[in-house]
């Protein structure tokens, strides 16, 4: 049905970039823009990433909590620009396992890697969505009733993820999937736990956190409960979302509007 992939422009940019490439090269992390950002460069960067970076950051660049390697597919905690990414690759991050790449690695290869990492997040300026964000905003608080569970900038419910900056971590296709098939990819934080304590009390709520010896949940009244596993008689874990699918309640154009609104939710500059 819908396809929000509109990256044809990158091909044009690539041709332009090759022309520029002959004229000047960005040097030592100055903000001259990355000239190595053609599809070829991104592919070369991906191959380098798979070989050199994936051991810690994962083959899908989604990071590894065990090692402490961050997810590189969305907003980056330590870099807000290509130059920032470049500097981290060149210099590493002192006091962490992120080591600098070899000093003899050619500039072009570092910039190709920057281009690949940059390609993992979606620049909203490059996407033209069919829906209307302002109409989506109205649906969010009106017919869709999304704000009964989700907060945006401090307004809304607590039974779903805060969406104030969701456009930075989910691209339009993912947002569409979230609306139509919410059970497909549910973070463990949003699973439901049904607990029976040793005294026979039942509690049900969202899985705020679970560890080897304890469990914390939030019930439908947003009350927080902590359990010691040794005092739990039975424990049921529902690895599904509590969110309904909107495939029946909103029409195609309303869904487009909602996607446009959600994708527009970013940090105010």
């Amino acid at each position: 049905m819908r396809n929000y992939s509109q990256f044809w422009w990158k091909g044009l940019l690539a041709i332009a970039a090759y022309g520029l490439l002959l004229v000047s090269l960005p040097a030592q992390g100055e903000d001259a823009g990355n000239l190595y950002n053609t599809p070829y460069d991104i592919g070369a960067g991906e191959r380098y990433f798979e070989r050199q970076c994936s051991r810690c950051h994962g083959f899908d660049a989604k990071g590894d909590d065990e090692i402490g390697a961050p997810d590189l597919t969305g907003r980056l905690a330590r870099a807000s620009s290509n130059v920032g990414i470049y500097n981290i690759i060149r210099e590493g991050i002192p006091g962490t396992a992120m080591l600098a790449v070899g000093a003899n690695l050619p500039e072009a290869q570092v910039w190709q890697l920057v281009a690949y990492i940059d390609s993992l997040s979606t620049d909203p300026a490059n996407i033209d969505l069919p829906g209307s964000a302002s109409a989506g905003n109205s649906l969010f608080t009106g017919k869709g009733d999304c704000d009964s569970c989700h907060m945006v900038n401090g307004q809304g419910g607590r039974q779903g993820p805060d969406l104030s900056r969701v456009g930075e971590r989910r691209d339009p296709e993912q947002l569409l999937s979230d609306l139509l098939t919410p059970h497909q990819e549910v973070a463990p934080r949003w699973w439901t736990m049904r607990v029976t304590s040793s005294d026979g009390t039942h509690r049900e709520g969202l899985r705020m956190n679970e560890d080897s010896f304890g469990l914390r949940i939030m019930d439908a009244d947003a009350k927080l409960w902590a359990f010691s596993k040794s005092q739990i008689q039975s424990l049921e874990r529902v690895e599904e979302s509590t969110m309904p699918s909107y495939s029946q309640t909103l029409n195609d154009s309303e869904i487009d509007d909602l996607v446009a609104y959600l994708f527009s939710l970013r940090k105010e500059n």
Partner: protein
Amino acid sequence: MKRFTIMLLALGASIPALAQEEPFQTVITPAFSPVTWERLVNAADEPENWLMYSGTLDSQRYSKLDAINISNVSELEMKWSYQIPVIDRAETVPMVVDGIMFITEAPSNLVAVDAQTGQVYWRYDRDLPEDIRICCGRNNRGVAILGETLFMSTLDAHLVAIDARTGNVLWDKEVADYKAGYSKTAAPLIVKDKVVTGIAGGEFGIRGFIDAYDAVTGERVWRTYAIPAAGEVGNDSWAGESWKTGGAATWITGSYDPDLNLIYWGTGNPGPDWNGDVRMGDNLYSDSALALNGDTGELAWHFQFTPHDVHDYDSIQVPILADIQYQGSNRKVMMWANRNAFYYTIDRETGKFLQGQPYASQTWAQGLDVNGRPIRVPGMEPSYEGVLVSPPIVGGTNWYSPGYSQQTGLFYVTAFDGEQEFFKRDEDYEKGERFTGGGGRYNQPMDAFHSSIRAINPATAEIEWEFPIMPRSSAGISTTAGGLVFTGSADGYFFALNAATGEELWHISLGARVHAAPMTFSVAGKQYVTIASGNVVYTFGLRD
């Protein structure tokens, strides 16, 4: 100067009195004494000390101390903590000799502290080159001691001898070229008058080996390659020239049997890890247990767990040696829960396979044949598109130490039931560059998987009990004569289980992942248990 003279005079005057009367009241730990080879052979008989990485040469990690036991372990409290200054994960197992504790730190540093207080005697901070090649973090797991000298591996692939009383460097030997991807992270093992040590770098197309160095001079006495050279037996298990870059790193500490004079050591994955096309054949002796002559390093026998591995199932586990009742007779065995998710009991005199079956989730093999060789499930090799296989790259278990209790006769392992998509890529070898040929990707959140501490009967390979914890723990295990199993978890707990039943007896949240194995010791008659969590080393004892 004048004041210094006066102090000396005062000290001199007090010495004769001390020797005859009460012990010096301000001395809170006993004096350090040299650790002879005989002491190392009999390390189990001085349980107040933890004299090597795995406690004893048989690597059981079983302590005869029982002051902390099933009935009082719930009263444990923290006695001291030591903060490691360089931020990284601590995989160290401290060593304790006569009240002095030696702790290795990231990246390749060492500190000696008072084992009763955690207060520092001395530090050794190593200068490392900036272009070291390491696959998986800046780790060091521990030291070895002989006499008054400590032996430590460094990330730039050196072996260093350090004076245990001062931290002074006695000798510093390059084991291999770090620029070619070699590094060292494991504690060495003392065998008689030699320092036996392995090498890391299996993701860089190295050729693995086990070395022995003269403890006094630092001269290399022997080297046994984990991959046979051209013309040697087993070289034909590698296609073409692939043996030259075949990996088989030896990056964890082995064990030793003084009666058989055999060193037991595990070997890592063949390289490139996930693309076996360029190295057709069984790839001997990758993913194997090697038994080497204790004097010459000559290979006595080998047992290959995973022939032609394409999933990075390193056989880098600490071999546990014990004599057990097996089918009606006493048998010298080696116990091994492998990264490939199978548990094995092997006759350690001959290398003969006795028992084996999965102890964790696995989909890559239908089972083991009578010789212990896996019967593969077709279509489980990594592909360009990705193939879902269990266990994942990190394995059913990994490098973190298992344990064995002489009281229960059970083997304990930290097990993970996970799965991952495996990908294959084409890569050419370049010196000093990664040479892995692919990688892996989880397609479920980690919390969807399961981890447990599992107790296995080595005579039957059956699981006797399990204690579930959150995935994925990388903590090792220790056992004691107090009927206890100590271990940690990924969510930062340190805890004690009943070794016979798996019942939880005590836990404490330390707030950071446990990447290390616990150890126990005593000073002045009081037993302590030590564990590293996050960047801190904690020591616990009973309430005074």
